[in-house]
C-alpha cells in the first residue's frame, strides 16, 4: 500500500460517492428507477459486506491466517446480538466483549 494508491482511492471514492448521491436529485430529475434495478439495489449491503467479512473471520490476518476461537465466537456473538436486538452498537460492543473475554480466559 503506497501513498499514491491511498490518495487515488480517497479522491475516486469521494467523487464517485458524491455522484451516486447527486444522481437523481441533480441530473435525472423526477424519473423513477426501473423496478428491477431498485429490487437489486436493495440487496447491495447484504450482498457486499458479508462477503467482505467472511474471509476476515475464517482466516484472520492477526493469527497468520488460521482460524481462531476467540475471533469466531466474537463474530457469532455480534451476528446474534445484531439480528436479535437490531442494535448496531450493541452488536459491536457485545462482539468485542466476547473477543476480549475469550482471549483473557484462554
Amino acid at each position: 500500500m503506497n501513498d499514491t494508491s491511498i490518495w487515488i482511492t480517497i479522491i475516486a471514492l469521494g467523487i464517485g460517492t458524491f455522484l451516486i448521491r447527486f444522481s437523481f436529485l441533480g441530473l435525472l430529475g423526477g424519473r423513477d428507477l426501473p423496478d428491477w434495478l431498485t429490487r437489486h439495489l436493495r440487496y447491495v449491503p447484504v450482498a457486499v459486506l458479508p462477503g467482505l467479512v467472511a474471509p476476515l473471520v475464517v482466516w484472520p490476518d492477526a493469527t497468520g491466517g488460521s482460524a481462531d476461537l476467540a475471533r469466531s465466537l466474537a463474530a457469532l456473538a455480534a451476528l446474534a446480538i445484531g439480528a436479535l436486538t437490531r442494535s448496531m452498537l450493541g452488536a459491536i460492543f457485545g462482539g468485542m466483549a466476547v473477543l476480549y473475554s475469550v482471549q483473557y480466559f484462554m
Partner: protein
Amino acid sequence: MGCAYWQGFRAGLPFVLVVAPFGLLFGVVATEAGLDIVQTMVMTVLVIAGASQFAAVQLLSDNAPTFVVILTGLAVNMRMAMYSASLTPHLGKAGLGKRALVAYFLVDQSYAVSVAEYAKTPARPLPEKLAFFFGSVSPIAPLWYGFTYIGAVAGKAIPPEYALDFAVPITFIAIVAPALRSLPQISAAFVSVAVALSLAWLPYNSGLIVAALLAMITGAAIEKRLEQAHE
C-alpha cells in the same frame, strides 16, 4: 423555517449515539491500517459514508488493487442512488447548489428521518423541507468529522493486545445483522459468504465482486418469487 430546521435537528439528535463511536472507530482503524491523519480526515470529509470507508481501508491494508478498493467502496454506497431517487419528488425543485449540498449530506440517518417526515407532511413548502433535511444532518456530520479525528489521534496509542484488527469485521457484522430480517436478505447474505469464501483464491479480491453480484441476484429473485406467491 427556523422551526423546521430545529425539528430536523431534534430528529437527527439520537443518531449522535451511533455516529460518535462509529467515527471514533473509523479514525482508529484507518490509522492502524496505515493512513496518516490527513488522509484519514480527507477521506472522512470527502466520502462521509462509514461502511464504504471501513471497506476501503480494510482492502487497502490487504493490498488489494486500487480499482477493486474503489469498486467495492462505491458498491457499498450504491444504495444511496435509491435515497437520491426517493428524495427527488420532494427536493428536486431546489436550486442546483442546494441539491448538491443535499447530495453531499445524504447519509443513512438524514435520509431515514427526512423521508419519514416528508411522508407525514407531503404538502410542506420546499424551503421547510430543505430546512428539515439540513437540521437533521447538523448534529451528525460535525460529530462524524470530530470523532474520526479523535480516533485517528488516539489510535496510535492503542496497543495491539486490544485486537483492534477485529473491530472492522465486527463492525461490518453489526451493520448487516439488523438488516437480516427476511428470507431474501438472509439468502443474499448466505450466497455472499459462500461465494466469497470459495472464490477467495481468485486474484485481486475479485471473488468479492462476483459474490456480491450473485448475492444481489439471489436476493432480488427470491423477493420476486415471494411477491408472486402472495398475489
